């Protein structure tokens, strides 16, 4: 239907506010950032064009490479652990009549909480004297004697664990929605054939929820790029850059050292990567994948 056969410009009046506010806050600053990455600006004074020097410097930057590696690790962790747990829990939930709502609410609730709160909870639990460490000590088991957030070997995984703990319930709900759309006849047929629970999952559930599943993977890949809160609050990227991620690295350069050009270059790379990922998934869809 067209409510405005005559005066179609009125339709634009309705869109202008959202476009204006979005351009003002996100669009224009993004374009500015894409331009500033070719300069050595420090936020004050003259802006010098330096070409791709920031990028050349970045590819030589040991800490930046470390941060990228950590983001890749982070992506891999999130693509496996929470996804597997969520798939399993969602699948088990579909076979349960009683208490379904209770489980769903319990799984989902941490997703509603602020990063600061979640971090505080786990900082306490992983505290060597209080929390779980103190508890284990009181029953005579030596575990978590030092906080995993301040240990070089574990800091990144500990931060990822807390973020994953708050995130996986979200995946359960998404997968559950997909699983409820599966035609029950398929399962009945499989039952007659004597298929096991795992076979039914592997050959019916997983293929049937593929669009949602693939979409969830894309979201995880994209959301793993700007990871900031959990790292900043729990470890600050430390100790000794052992949990540094790209967003935190950018934040330090932007707001502690005021390397506008350098930080913009990092932001530009993040943006290019995200657009690249979205492009790949778009291309796969065009090629006939059901995503």
């Amino acid at each position, binding site marked *: 239907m067209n409510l405005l056969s005559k005066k179609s410009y009125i339709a634009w009046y309705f869109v202008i506010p959202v476009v204006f506010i979005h351009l003002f*806050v996100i669009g*224009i600053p993004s374009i500015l950032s894409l331009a500033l990455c070719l300069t050595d600006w420090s936020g004050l004074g003259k802006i010098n064009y330096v070409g791709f020097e920031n990028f050349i410097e970045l590819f030589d930057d040991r800490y930046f490479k470390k941060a990228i590696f950590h983001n890749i690790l982070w992506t891999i962790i999130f693509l496996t652990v929470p996804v597997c747990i969520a798939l399993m829990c969602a699948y088990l939930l579909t076979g349960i009549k009683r208490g379904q709502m209770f489980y769903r609410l319990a799984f989902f609730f941490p997703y509603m909480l602020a990063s600061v709160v979640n971090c505080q909870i786990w900082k306490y639990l992983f505290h060597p004297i209080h929390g779980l460490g103190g508890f284990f000590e009181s029953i005579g088991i030596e575990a978590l004697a030092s906080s995993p957030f301040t240990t070089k070997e574990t800091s990144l995984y500990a931060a990822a664990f807390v973020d994953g*703990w708050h995130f996986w319930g979200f995946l359960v*709900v998404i997968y559950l929605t997909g699983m409820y759309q599966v035609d029950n006849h398929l399962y009945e047929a499989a039952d007659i054939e004597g298929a096991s629970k795992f076979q039914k999952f592997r050959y019916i559930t997983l293929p049937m929820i593929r669009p949602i599943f693939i979409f969830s993977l894309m979201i995880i890949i994209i959301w793993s790029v700007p990871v900031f809160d959990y790292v900043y609050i729990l470890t600050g990227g430390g100790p000794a850059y052992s949990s540094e991620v790209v967003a935190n690295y950018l934040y330090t350069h932007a707001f502690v050292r005021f390397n506008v050009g350098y930080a913009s270059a990092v932001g530009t790379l993040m943006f290019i990567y995200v657009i690249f990922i979205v492009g790949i998934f778009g291309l796969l869809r065009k090629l006939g994948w059901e995503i």
Partner: protein
Amino acid sequence: MLVSNFRRKEAIPNHFILILFALLAVLPILVLFFNSIKPFSEFGLNPLGPPSEIRLQNFPDAWIAGEYTKIFFNSAKLVFGSVLLCLAVSLLAGFSLAKLNPKGSTVIAIYLLVGISIPAQLYILPLFLLWKELSLLNTHVGLIIIYSALNAPFATFLIRSYMIRLPDELFDAAKLDGANTFQIFFRIALPLSWPVILTAGLIIGLAVWNEFLFALTFITDPNFKPMATILFSFQARFENNYALQSAAAIMMVAPIAVLFMLFQRRFISGLTSGGLKE
């Protein structure tokens, strides 16, 4: 629905696994709650369990120590301001994209979709410098504008997908009666859309209440900080006073917990609608 594909005897191990994960999700929050009503002196002996003596005084203590009367008001201002502004612009745009279909509206839709995927880190620094120029740093208005822009694409799509299902006959009839587009929007589209307005409002409010990165960057004056960043500095200030810290955290969780109990379905469907795409 799928009950038939699990035999009865399988239900018990299923419940066992699910309960384990439910406990993993809920117990840490329960520990936080216990800690918020635990006397400070009890922490050394009893780090995880329920307190032997309930001390509600932790809450007023934290409230006073963190100057929460002011801080709570700051957060409330940000939440209400952002929800109102964001809903206003998103309702207009959602209505237009759903029912008016202006020429080239796909360009707008694509722009907003790209806008969702841009990492905040790309634009946060130029935005910061721009806000400095406009003297919007350390103001709530500045942060409200940012939050509205951040949440507007999501809200617009949510509202659009709802309004697109409203029957066209209603709009046609109003048009025949001589109503102009704005009247159609206010008299017909808005009253019919209250469910999606409520859902979108809750999700925007939750996002603003919990937001950390922008609050951290754009508000440095402690007098204007919202709950999230105050809690962060509170953790540093009272590093070893877990009773006080936990009480402060629970004060941030409580409103969300209450709203979640009242509107579970709305929260869940609203928050996952982005993941389930249009």
